[in-house]
């Protein structure tokens, strides 16, 4: 048979694509209007026409291992122009969701993240964990202090961070130690999951690009790839690719706000972390502190960006929004909203409300960290790597 590609359609994959918002995929009749109108598709072997037939034939590997699905920014130009209403943009979005699930381990978490019936579980687990931790912090402080000192006494750290008794501090509700004991390992776990996924991912997209003639690079060189990554970062930060879309310009703005919101909050959290463990200075910071400015701006940016995204999804008629989209948008907006509300109620002096929103905030952060490699949120890693690969491979 030589170089022939043995076609083995995976019916379950077709059903999965349909289930994740690609229910229009079978309408495609391969006219290639999508590949023509797409502003960011390359001239050689353009997408998404070929992805559409691969999806309707259930050729999982041709899609999951395909760098092109990540080059798409789901602007919707293709879906608007499609004469059959096959919505290539939504199909690719569903395919990406499946790709994320495919590269993430363990699978049951990936499935749970994409299953609305598992949402109570996803929220319930952190709710219980933090309820227990809050109970320990608030009612067993003395006991915890004893235990802490007997184990970590030599380091000079103290159990309690609540030094200013006149200020409402979240660490009086759930100890910062507890918070970091949960999230630091979670963050490392997420990085691990990503790492093992990315190794496979990079190998797969390279093999696929070579097999389908989408690259002139035969061997994958890690150094060249990283140089490409450096070149791509400004493109991502400036949303250059995103802005090329004509159909959906306002989405780029919303996305930009959310992205910078997250970056800002990441910086704030890192500073806070370093200052606390390095210099022993605890929060909450004064509002005049520049770090606080950044935190507030980033938080507002996240709330507004998230709200805009939700509005866009609700008003856009020829775009299908499925559970995976709403889960992420809910998370993004919820994170910003609960964060800001926590701060505002704290400043207003209502300890009960402040703790309540902080509790919700912690549940959502748990969702963000724990399910990062499994949810649609993982796109920030895969798309970045894919764009870097495309840059490297002269795609």
């Amino acid at each position, binding site marked *: *048979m030589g*170089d*022939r*590609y*043995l*076609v*083995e*359609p995976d*019916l379950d994959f*077709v*059903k999965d694509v*349909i289930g994740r918002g690609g229910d229009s995929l*079978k*309408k495609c*009749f*391969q006219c290639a209007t999508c590949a023509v109108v797409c502003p960011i598709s390359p001239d050689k*072997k353009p997408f998404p026409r*070929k992805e559409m*037939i*691969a999806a*309707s*034939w*259930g*050729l999982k590997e041709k899609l999951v291992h395909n760098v092109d699905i990540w080059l798409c920014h789901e602007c919707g130009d293709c879906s608007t122009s499609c004469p*059959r209403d096959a919505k290539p943009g939504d199909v690719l979005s569903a395919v990406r969701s499946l790709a994320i699930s495919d590269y993430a381990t363990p699978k049951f978490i990936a499935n749970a993240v994409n299953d609305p019936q598992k949402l109570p579980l996803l929220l319930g687990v952190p709710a219980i964990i933090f309820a227990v931790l809050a109970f320990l912090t608030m009612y067993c402080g003395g006991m915890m202090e004893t235990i802490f000192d007997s184990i970590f006494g030599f380091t000079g750290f103290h159990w309690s961070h609540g030094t200013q008794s006149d200020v409402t501090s979240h660490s009086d509700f759930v100890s910062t130690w507890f918070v970091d004991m949960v999230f630091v390992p979670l963050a490392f776990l997420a990085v691990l999951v990503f790492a093992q996924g990315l190794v496979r991912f990079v190998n797969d997209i390279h093999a696929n690009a070579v097999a*389908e003639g989408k690259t002139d690079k035969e061997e994958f060189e890690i150094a060249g790839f990283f140089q490409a990554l450096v070149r791509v970062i400004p493109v991502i930060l400036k949303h250059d690719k995103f802005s090329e879309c004509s159909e959906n310009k306002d989405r780029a703005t919303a996305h930009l706000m959310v992205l910078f919101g997250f970056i800002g909050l990441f910086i704030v959290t890192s500073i806070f972390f370093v200052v606390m463990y390095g210099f022993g200075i605890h929060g909450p910071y004064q509002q005049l502190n520049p770090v606080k400015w950044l935190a507030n701006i980033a938080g507002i940016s996240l709330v507004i960006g998230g709200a805009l995204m939700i509005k866009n999804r609700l008003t856009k008629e020829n775009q299908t929004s499925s559970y995976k989209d709403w889960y992420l948008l809910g998370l993004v907006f919820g994170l910003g909203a609960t964060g800001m509300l926590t701060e505002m109620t704290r400043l207003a002096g209502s300890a009960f409300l402040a703790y309540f929103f902080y509790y919700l905030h912690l549940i959502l952060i748990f969702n963000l960290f724990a399910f990062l490699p499994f949810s649609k949120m993982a796109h920030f890693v895969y798309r970045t790597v894919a764009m870097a690969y495309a840059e490297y491979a002269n795609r």
Partner: protein
Amino acid sequence: MDKKYGVYICTGCGIGESVDVEKLSEIPEEEGISCKSHPCFCGNEGLELIKKDVADGTNTISIVGCSRRVNFDIFKFDGCIVDRVNIREQGVWSHPRSKYPAPTEEQKDDEEFIDQVQMLADDYLKMSIAKLEKVDIPEPFKLDAISKKILVIGGGITGISAALDAVKAGYDVTIVEKEAQIGGYAAKLRKQMPVEDPYENLIPLQINAKINEVEAYSNITVKTNTIVARIAGQPGEFTVTMKKPGDKIEFDVPYPLPEEMKVDENGKELDVEKLAEVYKEYNSGKTDILTLDPDGELFGAVILAAGWRPDTLEGDTYAHLGYGEIPDVVTNSQFEEIAAAGKIKRPSDGKEAESVVFIQSPGKGEDDSDFNYCGSVTSMVSLKQARYVREDYIDGKAYVVYQHMRTPGLQENFYKSMQQDEGVFLTKGEVMSVSKNGSGLIVDVDNTLLGEQISIKADMVVLAAGMVPATMDDPVINLAYRQGPGFRDNDLFDQYADSNFICFPYETQRTGIYAAGCIRRSMTIEESMEDATGAALKAIQCIESVNRGVSVHPRSGDMTFPDFFFQRCTQCKRCTEECPFGALDDDEKGTPLLNPTRCRRCGTCMGACPERIIGFADYNIDSVGSMVKAVGVPSEDDFDEPPFRILGLVCENDAYPALDIAGLNRLELNAQVRFIPVRCLGSVNVIWIKDALAQGMDGAFLLGCKHGDDYQCHFVKGSELADIRMKKIGDALTSLALEEERVTQFEVAIDEYDKLPGMINDFVEMVEALGPNPFKGF
């Protein structure tokens, strides 16, 4: 008939401004014919003028003005012969005064001044008067007794539908079906493609309801286990002999001698008597075509709905597909049989066929053509059968590999709906091979939409074999016609029963026989039912036209028919052989016998006859010949530089309208040409050309329809025959020391009016270069 002539010259539409009507009126007046002019004869006032004359006894009328193709319903006077002289479209509109100036006051008396437009108008009027002298009012041909019964050959969905349509319109019908029951292929399916809105899903078979409907009508006679042994006679009185399939009876139709039997062992043609002897021997036991079966049943018209058979796909072209070699490679009709019997199982081992590849085009060749005798129906059948696979197996996979996916009209909805099934996979592609792979099959396909060379695993492969018309294997209609029992020239149509698919659907090359359904092209059940209605209406039109003694089509309503002057017939049989519709039989001596209701009035016989003994009441050798002779041919006696004269014989079906459209668009034509409309180029007798050249005209051309494989001739063979005759005339011209280029034939389609000026004017220039006809002035 005592002719009282009247000439009416219209001065409207720019004629009066261009032509000197007073001078033109002198022509009829010199012959004592009354001549009137009016600015608008088609208006009430003008029309009243003519009607008054008609009331006073005028019965032979020449209306000088617009083309015969317009206002024909206005200039219609009972009991009168009306001729139209077209000096509008083909006169003043296409010969502007800017190009052919009118004489100035000083030039009016200048004998050397050539007023081209006036000469043209003069000639056309003279030609009209000459013609009117030679024509008569036609009298219809009426049969003594007419049968209005309709015979339907074939009891499938088409035949049944046609029978129902005809019976509902009030006509008695007999269906003959060769099998033991009616229903045909439509009764052997698992499911049927949709026939009504929303055209999305497969539907249960409709045929049983139709059969029940047929049984409810007492005036539909169904004869199963029956075929047609012979159809003799002509529309309105077809004498039909029926028999059981396989029987040999005396009224089996005799066949014409094959070519190899018409010569002796040395390859020399046999003489007439010997031929008759061989013919009798060849058809021994069969009664001659002219003897009517006394027990035969009379019918007025025939609907041919004999349908199709699945193509057998033999030969090397299909070797790479494994058909015949691998039992699990089947045709679509074999697959339908399997599907109708139950769950889809592999023929080789009875294993469930969960993965099936449907191949629409043989592939591996120079072109991307589908299987022979395919059509949109085979595309849709593949979608339907893909659905069967999905119905039978939850994890079933149906692949359709096509070069063309044809789903016309609202069947697009059907395609869309079948496409929605997640287990149906469609791609364009070129199939390279089908081979065994363990107990299954593997199909290799190139150039797919998936972007590369692919292989597909399959349990079964289904080939979209075409639907071969029944007329491929057998004449079916078994006509007792001298030209033979089947349709002649059917090779042109790959044996489909057809004559001109686009222009004249249902009409075959035999008047009174109307084809419907898959004998005409591959069709779905829905299309077949619609087709049946068309053929039924045609059959009824035929019967009612015959009843009134007029032609059916394409010259619908024409009352004339060819008239033979038998005293001068030399029994050369040309008319019998050349008639495109087999209207003429001949007796043992070879004398032609006309069957007027088979005739379409094209005049091909008239063009063929070397003795010029065939003519129509209003169109004959003499009428056209007189028109040719009426053309004024100026010689050096008249002018120092006499203008040329060129004859254009123009087919009135497409070429004449195209000329009118050219005029309507004010395209300029050379004023030295004189046009004469002819019924068909097939009716052009070479004597007219000879007459034209003999009287000094410088050239002649025929303007008619395209001939050949994709001919546009309304009478199938007319323009082709004319072409052969014109090539022969070339030799005669050479012997007269005339250049053979002086006579030619042009092909033109009705929409090519813009090409006409170039065609005609170039020809005139070419003739001018040859110089004037040396016979001028004799």
